[in-house]
């Protein structure tokens, strides 16, 4: 019976802990509040062992625990100094931390005992039922069936509550043309899904309650019914077809934009790198110059290829500013690893892939000012953020987005600096000694 010996040892050990913690005082420190909770799970192995004691000891009544208690207090004298010397050995960590940790472990242990006690009480209750000749097999079954009804009611209310509260927090008006269409589709899908969710759960938990096992009941032998089977194959298929068509046309409308419209849009390039975004406006010629990553230097961080004259008038945006009701075409790419260009308010997202350009074209419909008015929040801003895991600062890789009127946009853009700075020009001219004069003129014109 080495197991029993083991139990005794554990009891002594745990009680020793209790006493030593009691001696060290001030159990209720704030700082380690929930840290200990997490670490509790590691301690569970130990705890579960101790739960045996609870299981067995409760039956053995309180006198037993009294005796072990006295034994433990003897042990605790030895236990306390070792604990403190351990803590002192590690500089920088307050012994209080350990105390708090053990306090939470202890709390959990007490909880386990409580559960064990309740278990015992239930066992006794069952025995008395049996002795009185009452049914002792179905009552637990009935409790579970009842709990399913409770779960159904609270669950449905919880869903409703969540829709109302969290839903209100999370749904904001889409600030783009295609976003409005997506939101309609989102709402349609939500209505369908909610109906299915509610009905199936009423059926699932309702059946569980209604058809719980009872004495002298026999289940209805009903192995198949092909008609019903066909109905619930075809109905979801039809609903899904509708959703697919809806989605497919919307998707094509967003991603498959005629070339003519692509050209008419304002061209903006956004380049991601760990952990920032660079915004490049096309400038007067409306075209973005080529880049070549091999040309990257400390001065020319993007590796813009200045042999491509389209790049000479490219401007660097301190933030993303776009005019309202004008189509804008974003060209997204990345310098290093994958990022994702994501503007939740616009329902816009596309990954930034190194070595490849991706595009997203949309038309914003609500200016930042208007959105602030609508939300009644005068510090509100649209924001573009990274949605693809990209390293330590992934959680803070953002760029402000402002939607403004046409005039404000032009005014703002005029103030934005060129990528092709004086320093870069010098560097470029050194490499391009044989540059022809026409180029030089063009260069001058950009000033």
């Amino acid at each position, binding site marked *: 019976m080495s197991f029993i010996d083991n139990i005794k040892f554990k009891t002594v050990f745990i009680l020793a802990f209790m006493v030593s913690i009691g001696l060290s005082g001030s159990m209720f420190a704030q700082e380690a509040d929930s*840290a200990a909770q997490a670490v509790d799970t590691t301690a569970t192995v130990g705890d579960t062992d101790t739960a045996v004691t609870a299981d067995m000891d409760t039956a053995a009544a309180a006198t037993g625990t009294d005796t072990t208690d006295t034994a433990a207090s003897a042990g605790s004298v030895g236990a306390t100094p070792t604990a403190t010397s351990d803590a002192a050995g590690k500089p920088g960590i307050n012994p209080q*931390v350990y105390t708090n940790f053990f306090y939470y472990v202890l709390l959990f242990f007490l909880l386990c005992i409580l559960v064990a006690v309740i278990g015992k009480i239930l066992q006794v209750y069952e025995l008395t039922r049996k002795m009185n000749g009452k049914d002792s097999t179905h009552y637990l079954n009935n409790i579970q069936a009842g*709990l399913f009804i409770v779960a159904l009611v609270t669950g449905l209310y919880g869903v409703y509550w969540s829709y109302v509260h969290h839903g209100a927090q999370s749904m904001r008006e889409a600030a783009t043309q295609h976003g409005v269409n997506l939101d309609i589709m989102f709402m349609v899908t939500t209505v369908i899904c909610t109906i299915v969710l509610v009905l199936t759960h009423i059926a699932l938990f309702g059946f569980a309650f209604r058809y719980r096992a009872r004495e002298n009941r026999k289940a209805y032998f009903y192995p198949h019914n092909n008609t019903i089977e066909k109905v619930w194959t075809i109905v979801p298929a039809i609903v899904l077809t509708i959703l697919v068509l*809806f*989605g497919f046309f919307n998707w094509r409308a967003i991603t498959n934009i005629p070339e003519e419209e692509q050209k008419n849009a304002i061209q903006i390039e956004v380049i991601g790198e760990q952990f920032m975004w660079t915004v490049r406006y096309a400038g007067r010629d409306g075209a973005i110059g080529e880049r070549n990553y091999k040309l990257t230097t400390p001065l020319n961080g993007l590796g813009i290829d200045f042999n491509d004259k389209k790049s000479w008038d490219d401007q660097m945006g301190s933030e993303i500013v776009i005019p309202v009701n004008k189509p804008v075409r974003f060209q997204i790419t990345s310098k290093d690893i994958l990022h994702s260009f994501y503007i939740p308010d616009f329902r816009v997202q596309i990954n930034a892939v190194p*070595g490849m350009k991706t595009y997203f074209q949309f038309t914003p419909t609500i200016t930042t000012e208007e959105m602030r008015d609508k939300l009644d929040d005068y510090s509100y801003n649209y924001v573009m953020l990274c949605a693809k895991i990209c390293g330590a600062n992934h959680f803070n890789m953002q760029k402000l987005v402002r939607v403004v009127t046409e005039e404000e946009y032009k005014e703002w853009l005029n103030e934005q600096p060129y990528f092709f700075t004086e320093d870069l020009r010098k560097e470029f001219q050194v490499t391009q000694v044989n540059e022809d004069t026409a180029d030089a003129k063009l260069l001058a014109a950009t000033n």
Partner: protein
Amino acid sequence: MSSITSAHPADHHGEHGHHHESFLSKYVFSQDHKMIAKQFLITGIVMAVFAMFLSILFRLQLAWPDKEFPILEVFLGKWAEGGRISPDFFLALVTIHGTIMVFFVLTAGLSGTFANLLIPYQLGARDMASPFMNMLSYWFFFTACIVMISSFFVESGPASAGWTVYPPLSAVPTAISGSAMGMTLWLISMTLFIASQVLGGINYISTVLNMRAKGMDLWKMPLTIWALFLTAIVGLLSFPVLVSAVVLLIFDRSFGTSFYLSDLVVQGQILPNEGGSPILFQHLFWFLGHPEVYIVLMPALGLTSEVISTNSRKPIFGYHAMVYSLIGITILSFIVWGHHMFVTGMNPFLGGVFMITTLIIAVPSAVKSFNYLATLWRGNIRFTPAMLFAIGMVSFFISGGLTGLYLGNSALDIALHDTYFVVAHFHLVMGSASIFGMLCGVYHWFPKLFGRMMNEKLGYLHFWLTFAGAYLVFFPMHFMGIDGVPRRYYAFTEFPFMEKWISVNVFITWAAIIAALGQVAFLWNFFSSIRFGKRATQNPWGSNTLEWTTGVKHIHGNWPGELPTVYRWPYDYSKPGHHEDFIPQTVPFSETMSSNLPHDFEGNVEAERIQREWELANRPQAEKEAE
């Protein structure tokens, strides 16, 4: 040990029995499917607890981003300096949590356990087709576990590029510290893991095809076997693709190739790689990755089918439809991988195609859910802990599956991709549903595994804590996703619009902690019941399938003497006219004349004639007089 077994040769019947078993060959390098199932299960549980613990760590960070937990520094050292988890380590936690849960727990722990246990048992075979390969499968898996966990003891930390390990982040060590040694270990571990899966898969398939007992034709197999069989096929076809993805990534990392890399300037350093594409990796990864979802889900569906039918005392509704929908899911699962890549730069036209295939796969899934509901209808439901978990599984399968309609729709996915909506979706439909399927299997087959019963009441406590906990944790996440909060964010403090979610995060973390502590009820129940549980009877649940015709004590070769013969399908529960509410598969129709239905004979004219004659002879007296 060996002397004991040789002293009792009577325990070992049949031609397999007589050989010496040392401790090593019995418990460690066992080739017996039952022992291997136990090994898979216990390793799976240990890994699950580990991964759950990691999740609690990062949940702490999300709930209290500004708070210090000095105790963490005690355990984690520099990764939690000053008691706060570092951003790098946060990503490592997320990555390893995902990897362990998806691969080590829900793939190996789930189908490894139950395929090994149930395929020979429910088919009436003495063991797997190749017991040696089966043993290798476990030991590859075990080594993979050790390698994966060992990455926590590397100075640069474990892999931290997300469980999908997209390059270039995973390929360039300067981009994130976890992509150094930790990532190498991750890749080695995955390669070992895939070897394990392939060895196991070949074994499962060949056993199901070749070693069925007499009379056990494919349409008499329990749905568990169908599910495990199709899962093995999916795994065998898709895991090798992951090997190719992983091997090419190893080449890129260690041998300077450029399969996935091109045009990189990392930390100001121009890398020489040219011509590769990160999208290639995504295609290869998700070609496994999506079938993987069904590899995780289908065994859970199979176990649930069996448990729901047994405990409703009712045949599973639409057995054939259930099998066909499983087959449908199997096939379709290979042509939907692109829905993970709608906005990753894949050709948008392809996105439209994948959307269509993706939403088609919802149809067989819907059929399965409705069939579960129909099985419960007018049943005589016994709420064993296994049954509770089965019902919970159906609930998660529905609620998580429904949000798939949003994410499978490429247009809606634009705004939801890589947000918490995705996290909520797959944790419900793949995480919770499969874990519940697995737990339902553990509670149901525990008597078969260990010959003892688990404590029912602790099972109830475990179920309600976990069920409520899972919903409380994952349901609110949908709304964070709708609001546009991306996943894998270390803190929500940098964006004004996310601040309102911090209080929700606190709530979620508390729910997670309580649910995690609830698992102690399971662990305690599981491990103590192995030794101290009530002794099980041979067929404690009144079940029809073959595994319950074997003795409680495990013997090598499963059945003493002859293997059983199968006469009927496994779902004859509460058949009218029979005195009991179950008829095991081994009972011939000649013993159940009073309950036979014309349908049972599958067009066998002779059998139908005999049945007609019997019915004429045994007509109730009243009917005879009426003539």
